[in-house]
């Protein structure tokens, strides 16, 4: 029996305050690559991994969302509370709780450790970020702390290779019994103060720390907002200015590859499928990889540096005027990458109504999938010149589109909250220490983004391009037909059938066709346009020539109308699926789809009419 128990993996769970390095430790121990960042609330659901200790013992490790207390106030904290207490459905209570503390913030984190200790379950304490604490001049008497807490205490630097060897060694022989119970009415704050006095020595307060000096500028309502605005502005300038040489190279590569395939394959359906379907479809989207990577480079740097929570703090007043709390900032900011993790991140919001409204707003944030649509249309219709000799006009327009989305979200929030009365608790935010971004982590993050983007191209976009090619090519036109072949195809008929609905907002039938696969993923609209124009127009190089093709065939009013549509674009299927999962029903899915479709249609209609009035109707 004992032998069998030994062979069963140990069930351990990582718990601790937000941003203490649990996920970094989880990644270090299990070899996973879960997302880590320098702000609270990155992990919102339990993650599971496995590891083997040096002595060969198997461990099943859970990474739980960060919590400030076991008295949960938000859905993510409830997961941690329930798992620790053994009440989580389908999850037996962990045999070992690994309580991770940031050594730089023991005043806050020790309180949670004491609360976990009151559970009486076997536990160990990991003092993480010991290197940062040492840099701050702190000296921690680890044996004394272990004695006072009555549980094993080990140190770790989770972001460093082999930074958790002490913990690994401990997992070979974990404690089998819990700590001695403490008094139920124990004053945890008083105990923390005593532990800090007895076990931690700090350098005497001297000159103002660099962080404090930085924060005086960064958190000021005036200079802070200016810095935030400048950072965002430069980000969008960079997206256009830095990416262009790389985009040109990829464009040339795609074009050359298309020509090569056209010469190698004999004329026929297979050549048409590969060149007009796959290359024209996927090739038009793959070109945008450099821009997406530059956008994410900025986001990753801001995440790693510890700036993001400060931006949330700055924007709290503005968001409160729309009835939102600063707690909505991180979920909404995550939605700039993709609405799916953004909507999941709303689990950190305590008030159910505020959470629901943040979920409704998340699809309004400009996700990276919209970037190809925006940049294609901007490149086709906005002159490539500099304003004042410094600012790239393309970047300015892109910045305006992002700001339009943010402005719209605030207005929608205000309307939904009926006058903007915040119901969420006042924003209490832990500001992490500033940190220079680790180049390896940045590289890894960008690599993951590139893999995600390319896997979407290789699966979603290629398969949809093939299907759209088939719909655009079949059935063949009847004998004696005089119109373009695509008019007789299924796609052509669907496009013409949808036209009466979308003609009032300036869309042509090709755009109507592209809107359907665009529901699967917004960037597919670009590949769909590539395929439709390649099949329909007989363009030999639609993948590389889509930009001039559109500027020649569409009016400026049509392009602006489509841009307005995509600011509010009815969301992709994945977003709808995650809304259903997070709200537990279809009602909010229907509400979201309906209000976004209405907004998109209204915005496009107004844009189209205004553009026509100003003479933008000529192609």
């Amino acid at each position, binding site marked *: 029996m004992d032998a069998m128990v030994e062979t069963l993996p140990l069930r351990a769970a990582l718990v601790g305050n937000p941003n203490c390095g649990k996920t970094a430790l989880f990644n270090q121990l*299990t*070899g*996973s*690559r*879960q*997302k880590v960042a320098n702000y609270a609330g990155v992990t919102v*659901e*339990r*993650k*599971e*991994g496995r590891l083997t200790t040096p002595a060969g013992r198997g461990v099943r490790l859970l990474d739980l969302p960060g919590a400030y207390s076991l008295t949960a106030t938000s859905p993510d904290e409830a997961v941690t509370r329930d798992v620790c207490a053994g009440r989580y459905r389908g999850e037996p209570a962990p045999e070992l709780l690994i309580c991770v503390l940031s050594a730089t913030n023991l005043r806050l984190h020790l309180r949670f450790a004491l609360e976990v200790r009151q559970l009486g379950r076997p536990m160990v304490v990991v003092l993480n970020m010991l290197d940062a604490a040492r840099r701050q001049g702190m000296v921690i008497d680890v044996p004394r702390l272990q004695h006072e807490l009555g549980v094993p205490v080990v140190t770790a630097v989770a972001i460093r290779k082999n930074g958790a060897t002490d913990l690994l060694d401990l997992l070979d022989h974990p404690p089998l019994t819990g700590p001695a119970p403490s008094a139920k009415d124990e004053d945890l704050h008083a105990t923390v103060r005593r532990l800090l006095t007895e076990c931690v020595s700090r350098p005497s307060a001297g000159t103002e720390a660099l962080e404090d000096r930085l924060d005086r500028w960064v958190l000021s309502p005036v200079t802070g907002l200016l810095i935030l605005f400048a950072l965002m502005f430069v980000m969008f300038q960079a997206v256009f200015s830095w990416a262009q040489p790389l985009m040109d190279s990829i464009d040339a590569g795609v074009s050359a590859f298309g020509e090569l395939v056209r010469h190698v394959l004999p004329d*026929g*359906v*297979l050549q048409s*499928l590969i060149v007009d379907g796959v290359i024209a479809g996927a090739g038009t989207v793959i070109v945008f990889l450099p821009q997406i990577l530059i956008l994410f480079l900025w986001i990753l740097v801001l995440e790693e540096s510890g700036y993001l929570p400060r931006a949330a703090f700055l924007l709290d007043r503005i968001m409160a005027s729309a009835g939102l709390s600063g707690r909505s900032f991180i979920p909404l900011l*995550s939605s700039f*990458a*993709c609405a*799916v*993790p953004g909507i*999941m991140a709303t689990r950190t919001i305590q008030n159910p109504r505020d959470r629901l409204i943040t979920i409704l707003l998340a699809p309004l944030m400009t996700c990276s999938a919209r970037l190809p649509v925006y940049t294609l249309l901007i490149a086709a219709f906005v002159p490539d010149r500099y304003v004042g000799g410094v600012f790239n006009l393309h970047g300015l327009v892109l910045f305006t589109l992002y700001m339009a989305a943010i402005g719209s979200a605030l207005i929608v929030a205000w309307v939904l909250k009926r006058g903007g009365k915040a119901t969420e608790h006042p924003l209490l935010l832990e500001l992490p220490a500033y940190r220079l971004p680790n180049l390896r982590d940045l590289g890894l993050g960008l690599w*993951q*983004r590139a893999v*995600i*983007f390319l*896997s*979407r191209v290789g*699966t*979603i976009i*290629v*398969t*949809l391009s*093939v*299907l759209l090619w*088939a719909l655009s090519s079949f059935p063949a036109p009847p004998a004696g037909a005089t119109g373009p072949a695509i008019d007789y195809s299924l796609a052509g008929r669907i496009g013409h059938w949808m036209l009466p609905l979308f003609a009032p907002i300036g869309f042509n039938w090709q755009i109507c066709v592209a809107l359907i696969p665009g529901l*699967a*993923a917004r960037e597919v609209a670009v590949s769909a346009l590539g395929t439709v124009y390649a099949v329909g127009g007989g363009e030999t190089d639609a993948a590389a020539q889509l930009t001039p093709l559109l500027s020649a065939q569409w009016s400026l009013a049509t392009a602006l109308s489509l841009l307005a549509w995509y600011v509010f674009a009815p969301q*992709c*299927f*994945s*977003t709808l*699926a*995650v809304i259903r999962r997070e709200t537990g029903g279809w009602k909010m899915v229907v509400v979201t789809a309906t209000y976004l479709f209405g907004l998109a249609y209204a915005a496009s209609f107004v844009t189209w009419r205004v553009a026509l009035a100003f003479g933008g109707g000529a192609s």
Partner: protein
Amino acid sequence: MIEVLIVGVLVVACGLYWLGRLAPSVTRGLWRGTGRVLDVVHAPVPVRQAVAGRAGSTSAGGCGGCKGCGKDGGGCH
């Protein structure tokens, strides 16, 4: 003729991929049916196992860009 066959297979495969994403229960039924046919015709075991695996698999969640939450691949973005 071979060209048409290749194109047909590719288009059907892409259609099945999307059917699997949008209506996984329908595709699982299709794979179960295929599995029964393969059993009747005594198809090679690896083929039958592959089909049985598809019949029992669950659909991938998320946006299709990641390998699913909780796996080593890296969660959701």
